[in-house]
């Protein structure tokens, strides 16, 4: 079995799994005042400090949530509500056209239910938002903008956005900016304070932590209306009894991912480059989507994303699966039905190219053998898939 779908989820690192396992049978609500509660609270707060240190934030800026999707929803909706409450003219959200559905659909929900107006920030053919694009969108009508959201790195094609530059522009106009950095942790150098963004989403299961735990890094001066109401455990912005074992494991994984980032990124880059080279040799008309330079600061080092002309991604996926190779079409699913990826369409590709696409994503357990398995299988699989369409 060759697993090349680390962008969907990556295995837990042993240190995180051990941390979590050791805490699973401990009892303690981090909000309780007695000893058990204090012990739980201490673990949570130490974890918060560790996460903050690893990601360049202050401990008070770490808001734990139940997943990246929740953190994205909180950032987009919460900051929108707060900004609009402060000034009713602020109803516009500037969102890149290649966001994950957690951001995109949150914005669309605001448009459908809360009177928000969305300006989709277009991307170039590599999937990148040009800083000038954001500036133009802000200059036009700066007073009506509630929020900017542009992801750090794209989950489908791996394109890295110029987040620092974008954040500087947003700041110039006094508009808060959120970035979904879910795919970036462990692959790119990441520093919340230095980036200049006001909110940043990171989630455990993409960097060796557990599923169902994430954090929204939320600047101390950024007001955010809660989505979940209750005990107000996290800065009154997020309620819910904290999942102590998961948070502890999340912190361990985050520290490790950041510490090992330069080494991991280099290893992933080498593996990925040999995957790309091998695939292009095996299937000469394969098209690499996204940033062509393979520069690890412009494209996630673990990402390879192709279109195979004349094939359907679905068919490729199924044929590869039958050969024990697990990857993804990278496109959003509803009822498991593949729709042409909005990311590829936003990059200017047509539906055929979007439907013909396949994502291979590498991670900390990837090996040369995984890459070799793909290179071995890809030509016959593409040939077979070609015969199915038409």
């Amino acid at each position, binding site marked *: 079995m060759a697993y090349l779908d680390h962008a969907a989820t990556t295995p837990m690192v042993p240190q995180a799994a051990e941390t979590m396992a050791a805490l699973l049978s401990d009892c303690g609500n981090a909000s309780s005042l007695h000893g058990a509660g204090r012990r739980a609270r201490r673990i949570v707060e130490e974890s918060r400090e560790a996460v903050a240190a690893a990601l360049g934030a202050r401990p008070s800026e770490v808001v734990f949530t139940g997943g990246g999707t929740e953190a994205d929803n909180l950032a987009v909706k919460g900051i929108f509500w707060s900004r609009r409450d402060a000034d009713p003219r602020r109803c516009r959200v500037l969102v890149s056209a290649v966001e994950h559905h957690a951001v995109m659909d949150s914005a669309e929900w605001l448009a459908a239910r809360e009177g928000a107006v969305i300006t989709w920030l277009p991307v170039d053919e590599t999937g990148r938002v040009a800083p000038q694009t954001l500036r133009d969108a802000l200059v036009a009508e700066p007073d009506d903008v509630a929020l900017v959201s542009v992801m750090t790195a794209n989950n489908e094609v791996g394109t890295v956005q110029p987040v620092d530059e974008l954040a500087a522009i947003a700041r110039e106009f006094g508009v808060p900016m959120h970035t979904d950095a879910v795919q970036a942790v462990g692959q790119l150098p990441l520093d919340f304070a230095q980036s200049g963004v006001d909110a940043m989403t990171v989630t455990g299961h993409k960097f060796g932590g557990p599923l169902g735990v994430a954090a929204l890094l939320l600047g101390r001066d950024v007001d955010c209306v809660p989505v979940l109401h209750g005990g107000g455990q996290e800065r009154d912005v997020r309620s819910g009894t904290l999942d102590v074992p998961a948070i502890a494991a999340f912190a361990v994984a985050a520290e490790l991912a950041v510490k090992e980032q330069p080494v991991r990124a280099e290893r992933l880059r080498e593996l990925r480059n040999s995957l790309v080279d091998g695939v292009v040799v095996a299937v000469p008309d394969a098209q690499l989507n996204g940033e062509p330079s393979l520069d690890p600061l412009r494209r996630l080092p673990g990402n390879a994303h192709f279109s195979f002309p004349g094939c359907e991604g*679905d*068919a490729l*996926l*199924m*044929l590869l*699966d*039958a050969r024990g190779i697990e990857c993804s079409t990278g496109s959003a699913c*509803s*009822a*498991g*039905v*593949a729709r042409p990826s909005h990311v590829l369409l936003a990059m200017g590709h047509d539906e055929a190219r979007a439907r013909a696409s396949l994502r291979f994503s590498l991670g900390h357990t990837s090996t040369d053998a995984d890459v070799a398995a793909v290179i071995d299988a890809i030509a016959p699989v593409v040939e*077979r*898939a070609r*015969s*199915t369409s038409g």
Partner: protein
Amino acid sequence: MKVLAAMSGGVDSAVAAARAVDAGHDVTGVHLALSPSPASYRSGARGCCSLEDSRDARRAADVLDIPFYVWDVAERFARDVVDDFVAEYAAGRTPNPCVRCNERIKFAAVLDRALALGFDAVCTGHYARLVDGLLHRAVDSGKDQSYVLAVLRPDQLARAMFPLGDTRKPDVRAEAAARGLIVADKPDSHDICFIADGDTRRWLEGRLGSQPGPIVDAQTGDVVGGHDGAYAFTVGQRRGLGVTVPAPDGRPRYVLDVSVVTRTVTVGPEDRLDVRTVLAGEPTWCGPQPTLPWQGLAQLRAHGEVHRCTGEVVDGRLVVRLWDPARGIAPGQTVALYDDTRVVGSATINSTAG
């Protein structure tokens, strides 16, 4: 064999897939997404393309431990089945969308794709039997679906697998329960899967609009009522005519003819519905072409009674003469020919004569 099991999310296709696995085949489950925007939940016994059905199918595949995929055939289905359905009604005919779906989707688009991907056969939960490559009625006559499969050619049947043909429905449910398939208690689907609430007339109205016209009595020539669209009427229909003028002889009136061109619905007494000659289109033979003229049995609607008949082909079209009259046969339906339990072939009915 590498077998692709079409899994609707219902009990029949789940058990069919399970039996294919038991038979030692390398089975992959596929749910066909027929609607571009599936409803979240199924309502009652209708529909087969909600997200819930897709999840049920996936759940069953997981229990069987087979790979599972969803194939998006919504575009083909919209064009080849739904649009055809509307066009047929607009032309005053009464189509059978299940026949079209088998003919153009399941055993055409899906089968072709499966073969191209390296599968050897497509397995479905239809109640029908294949004996030496020939299509036969199912053992459970109440569930028999050979009529809607009568459009399949020998080359398609050679790639088809119907593992439920020898089993009665209650036994299929019991088997599903015994296998731990949670769909065991799911209600059977009825009616037309893409008309969620089962109200075909209103559904058609939404697509074809209001086309008012007269309802005319065949005996007197009088206009006895009006309607909002002749397409909403089917030959043989008795209910819902809205005719208030009683017939001269006081007997109930039936729809005898639907003319979309003149927007006229003609009604009259039951005996005027008698049909002895069925003029159909180009026949599809499910097995070797029979020597013509041919004698056997004809079935003229799903779950309809059978009639002894003689069939021949004139100018490439099937003509069926019934030995005893059939009542209320609507153009657009399929005439399926049987030799005892074996399906010989079929054609689409164009017109009928008394």
